[in-house]
């Protein structure tokens, strides 16, 4: 058993990157490992409410995020500065998140045994 952290820094619909990261996240959860997500930089847009990917022919990755709870993936973190720099507030996101300050992020990462960077 190890603690896994997935750091997501790409916006939604940046190629297949997000859905392929979600594949690893779901596999890790299916292996009964504790999983946490940290959304940084443009990664915060992955949880932005009101996505309409079907209009542009993209896969609906927001629906996969909504399914994470079924896999016991509920530890989702983001960074206050990443939200603020993009004009977003927690209320713009469609899942509950815990907000860290930028200066806390490095220490937070040290608490995990495996970190997937994205």
């Amino acid at each position, binding site marked *: 058993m*190890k603690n896994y952290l997935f750091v997501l820094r790409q916006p939604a619909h940046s190629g297949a990157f997000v859905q*392929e990261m979600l594949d*690893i996240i779901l*596999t890790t959860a299916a*292996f009964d*490992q504790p999983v946490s997500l940290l959304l940084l930089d443009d990664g915060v847009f992955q949880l932005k409410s009101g996505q309409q990917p079907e209009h542009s022919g993209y896969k609906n990755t927001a629906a996969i995020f909504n399914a994470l709870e079924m896999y016991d993936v509920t530890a989702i973190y983001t960074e206050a500065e990443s939200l603020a720099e993009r004009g977003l507030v927690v209320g713009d996101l469609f899942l509950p998140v815990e907000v860290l300050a930028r200066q806390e992020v490095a220490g937070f990462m040290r608490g995990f045994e495996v970190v997937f960077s994205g």
Partner: protein
Amino acid sequence: MKFALQINSSPYQANAGRTACAFIKAAVAEGHQILQVFFYHDGIYHALKYATPPDDEPSQTQQWQALAKEHHIDLAVCISAAQRRGLLCADEAWRQGKQGNDLADGFRIAGLGQLLAATLEADRFIVWG
């Protein structure tokens, strides 16, 4: 120390593969063990059998093949990432009703479960690119 590595970018998109190769050589020389190199996202393009760079360019696929042969390194290519991009080994092509075998010798097709198993066993997991 036991290492598991993941390569995420293609040979002509970034230097991730080259620096990972250099890392592996240095790690093995120091007596460390490389459990697995997992090719994911566009990293799967390292495993294209028919990549044919000009004669005066080093082939990254051949570099990996030589490295794997010399040090018995497991080069695992993600099946879902590979199929998305059109890289199928002979078995998978047959199963999908297609022809061909695009997987370079020395690489093998693997699932995400094998990536997870490697991260669980390794002392360190490093993502490149």
